[in-house]
């Protein structure tokens, strides 16, 4: 299988069955399913960031741009009052996002480290202000999506986007596919070269590989999947807003990814679930939830050397 490491295997076998069954045990109302859905969607976004940062060593603080673009691209290219085909537009959005990433990547990949963080931030901020200042895209107040796409494939309809339960399972499946996709990528020859690029770009170049090209392809893939997550988020409630692209969104995703264990991929799911869970609990506990949240983050970073995934790794591997 793709999940070679023991800890990873454990996690996949516990998380996905649990996530499959969870809606059956939760109180039967729209909220829980919707909440789980948004966590699952965000985990996809975090995972694409996790690949970039943890596996390619490209730290970006502008990834939210693609997340937001996923939603806005749909509004830009789809007719307002006509149901379009979900799969076709998924394809369009991912391809357009990848093309945008290609152009942006050529610019940002000239830099590295902190400079790359800042230049990605700069480009994302420009994009944020473009939508936030715009008149035709609803400006700061955002826009509604009135007609959700139709999901039939070759005339067969599998599920209904308006049913929260259907949508949840679809997103969960997408998350699983994303995880498999990234595992395949990292396990392939391409992934191994990427690993070499991350550890020692100079030597990889000397071996005759075009480091820039490898980085660029990785950047495009991660951006396309981030846009896919953003597209799903926009469809969930039928609402897009520039705050999806704010640097705080990138920052939160980065926090989740580091919390989960940078580069472990499944840690992205772990980080997102734990962060969202803590957030949910604390905000129901007190108005000053920020204090608890902040303290918890500080405590975790002080105690866990490589995130939550690191802790699980330790536990599982030790029991061998």
């Amino acid at each position, binding site marked *: 299988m793709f999940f070679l490491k023991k800890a990873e295997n454990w996690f996949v076998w516990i998380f996905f069955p649990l996530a499959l069954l969870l809606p059956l045990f939760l109180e039967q*109302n*729209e909220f829980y399913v919707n909440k789980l859905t948004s966590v699952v969607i965000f985990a996809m976004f975090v995972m694409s960031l996790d690949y970039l940062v943890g596996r390619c060593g490209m730290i970006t603080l502008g990834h939210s741009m693609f997340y937001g673009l996923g939603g806005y691209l749909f509004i830009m290219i789809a007719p307002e009052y006509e149901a379009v085909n979900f799969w076709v537009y998924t394809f369009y959005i991912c391809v357009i996002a990848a093309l945008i990433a290609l152009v942006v990547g050529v610019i940002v990949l000239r830099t590295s480290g902190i400079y790359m963080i800042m230049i990605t931030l700069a480009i994302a901020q420009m994009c944020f202000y473009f939508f936030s200042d715009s008149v035709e895209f609803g400006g700061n107040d955002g826009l509604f999506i009135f007609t959700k796409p139709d999901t039939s494939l070759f005339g067969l309809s599998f599920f209904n986007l308006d049913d929260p339960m259907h949508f949840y399972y679809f997103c969960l499946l997408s998350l699983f596919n994303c995880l498999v996709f990234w595992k395949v990528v990292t396990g392939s020859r391409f992934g191994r070269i990427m690993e070499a690029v991350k550890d020692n770009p100079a030597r990889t170049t000397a071996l005759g590989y075009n480091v820039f090209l490898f980085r660029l392809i990785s950047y495009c893939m991660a951006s396309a999947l981030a846009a896919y997550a953003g597209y799903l988020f926009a469809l969930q*409630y039928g609402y897009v807003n520039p705050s999806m692209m704010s640097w705080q969104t990138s920052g939160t995703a980065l926090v989740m990814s580091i919390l989960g264990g940078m580069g472990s991929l499944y840690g992205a799911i772990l980080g997102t*679930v734990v962060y969202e*869970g*803590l957030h949910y609990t604390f905000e129901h506990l007190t108005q000053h939830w920020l204090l608890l949240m902040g303290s918890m983050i500080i405590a975790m970073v002080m105690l*866990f050397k490589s995130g939550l995934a690191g802790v699980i790794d330790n536990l599982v591997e030790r029991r061998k």
Partner: protein
Amino acid sequence: MKKHTSLLTLASALIVSLAGWSAPTAAADKPIKVGVMLPFSGVYAALGDAGRNGMKLALEQHADKLHGRNIEFIEMDTEARPDRAPEIATSLMSQKKADFIIGPVHSGVAMGMLKVLRNKKPVVIIPNAGANAATGPWCAPNVFRTSFSAWQPSYPMGKAALDKGYKKVVTMSWNYGFGKESLAAFEESFKAGGGKVLKKIMVPFPKTEFQSYITDIASLKPDAVFVFFAGGGAVKFVKDYNAMGLSGKIPLLGSGFLTEGTLTAQGDAAEGVITGLHYADGLDNPANHAFRADYEKAFGKPADLYAVQGYDTGLLIAMAVDQLKGNISDQGKLIQTMESLTIPSPRGDFTFSRAHNPIQTIYLRTVENGENRVIGVAAEALEDPARGCKMK
């Protein structure tokens, strides 16, 4: 040892994060559930606090009118983040089964919230967010507003400026929905009366470095300046305007939020600023005097506009429940009752328009000795045109 602590922290993090998911929500003997979605952290936190305080005060004072039903508050922090609004709204509606949902402050959050709540079971009462659309194109039977539309406080100011003899003005605000709508409303009446807008300055939100813009205004030498800013930005703008020596030379007009809840921080800089709003601290009516005294006693600080709007939201709920003798299960009846009410607000009595926005008087006020003093009425019983609203 280290391992144990880290294990413990991990375990507690997991338990805490899981515990939240399964918290029971069973209702005992059916209190009226009031879901509150206001910003309690970040830039708008002060507005959220005041609105909530006002509402609680009203519901405590009128506890006897609730026909024995208790009120249960469920408070959620919106963080003024529009992207979280649909989720929180769903939570209050489906998970907490709120009868009323109160919120928000921020117009963007209002849009995200209405997307989920329009034409649904809970009755939504907006205690601040002024986006015209909420009682315009997106109006709905179950959505009420106790505050204002962006159009309301600004529209009469165009005429007020002309009355004072100002023909050429510069307008300025943050470049976001509410600001744009405020300036548009001002221009509507100002241009209709033959006034000329020399320049419209849109400042990126939430930038507060205003000096260059103010210098620009000085170079244009208009008769007056009309601005929309609120909260911290309003404080900074008024201070900068004064510091650059323009106050007293080029009159400063504004939508009333410019000097609302900000006067202590603005200090002397705000003296003489003229604004239009549906409320003023010094309004001379018994309801206002009583409200201000009670509010100060209960919360230890003077009431502001946001507290008044929260208070009226509480009044609206209490009066509706009273008229229906505590039985609010029939949504149609509840909405009908609410539509018919006249709210004895500290701002003066008001009723609701067909789009459920207050029909209210806009006062002309000027700042004197650190207080908003009423100097006249800018528009009597002003009704928002509710453009695009299909409700009858």
